[in-house]
């Protein structure tokens, strides 16, 4: 079985969506997790609140996974016939379509993690300000959602 370079490029784009966005999420959730553990070590009552803040940077990994599924489905690897003879131009187009969520996912998850750390600091001192504290990392999410939309729209509208 032989694969065209276009097919390889499309597969690489799908893989990068999960890899980079997942790396960003692991990084962000890890940072926020350290802060959450610090708060819970002194005040276990804040567990639920800090857990939500810790989880916020985890969404980019899910977005990356979603784009990967859509891409794999598009190139026929999740059922149907795999487009192994795809042209290089089409493969590169799919690769480019995956980049927004891959790159923005990585960067935004890291920064969302840092913002979550700061917000966990707010919850630690003023637990009643949880609602406001959650808004700060949630703002960062906007850009991951924009990147997700662009990647989904682009991948979906490419004609093989």
């Amino acid at each position, binding site marked *: 079985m032989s694969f065209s370079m276009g097919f390889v490029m499309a597969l690489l784009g799908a893989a990068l969506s999960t890899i980079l966005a997942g790396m960003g999420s692991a990084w962000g959730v890890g940072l926020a997790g350290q*802060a959450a553990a610090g708060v819970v070590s002194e005040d276990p009552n804040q567990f639920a609140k800090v857990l939500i803040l810790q989880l916020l940077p985890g969404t980019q990994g899910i977005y990356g996974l979603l784009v990967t599924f859509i891409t794999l489905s598009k190139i026929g690897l999740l059922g149907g016939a795999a487009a192994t003879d795809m042209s290089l131009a089409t493969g590169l187009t799919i690769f480019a379509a995956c980049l927004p969520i891959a790159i923005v996912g990585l960067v935004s998850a890291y920064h969302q993690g840092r913002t979550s750390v700061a917000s966990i600091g707010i919850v630690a001192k003023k637990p009643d300000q949880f609602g406001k504290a959650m808004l700060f990392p949630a703002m960062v999410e906007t850009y991951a959602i924009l990147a997700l939309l662009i990647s989904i729209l682009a991948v979906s509208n490419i004609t093989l």
Partner: protein
Amino acid sequence: MKDMDYIFAVARIRVLEKTLLSDADISQMIALKDEQAVLAFLSDKGWGESGGSAPSAEEILACEEEKNRALMREMKIDPKVFDILSYPQLFHNLKAAIKEICTSETVPGIFYDLDRFGGKELMEILREKEFGRLPEYMRKAASDAYEVMLSTRDGQRCDIIVDRACLEAMRGSAKKLKEPMVGSYVESQVAVADIRVAVRSVRTGKSLGFLKEALADCDAFTASELAQAAAKGEEALYTFLENRGFAEAVSAMKDSPSAFERWCDNRLIETIRPQKMNSVSLGPVVAYYLARENEIKMARILLTAKANGFSEDSIRERVREMYV
């Protein structure tokens, strides 16, 4: 360690900051009728050992100091940081050891209980003149102060030699550590200590030679500049300090000695206050440690004032700003 390695510690500190005494707590304590009421208030705040039987003020304060040190050990903070902050205690032990040997007078409880260089060890080093066993930054001061004390019995000169060495050691070690918050705190501490010495010297008519021997350099001014200004008199010192950004210190000096002492401590708290907004570096952890030391000092002032029947106004004049 990198800044991001302190995320856990800083988050923990943020929770603990809620238990620090606030300005409102201090006002409440001032209004209490006597020392016992203040002790009860502190016990309610969790000070001292839980379930202990009516401890004394000193026992409660010693317990809180130990809790503070234990927390830092538990957080595995770079020991070099706290070594710098413990230099004043270390050099205090040196002064106490020199005086105890030279005067043959024993004062119970004069030494700080430190992991290294407690009173017994220092006295042994001094008696044997084994100054090489001391850290490099202490050797010359120990040798010079010991010789001065042995030959002249001048306790004040012995003190200034050791105190200056302490400030220089703190500054030197802080520069090597390259931790911005510790660096700025130490700079403030050196500047405040220098100003304190200069003010006392000018009011007691000390010579330029004494001032030069007592003062240490800092970023705000050199020891020589401050000594020259102080040697010219009180007005020249005030003008010099105002020109170097210490107008509030001058105002406090003109007000009263206790107002000036309060300014000195407040200045140090102002240096660490920005750490309340920092969420990822060593700064907030060190700031918490210093804030705890400040509140223990404040509690000691209050307890002593209450035990001696000071009026509320008189206590209020001595009240320092709190970190939170």
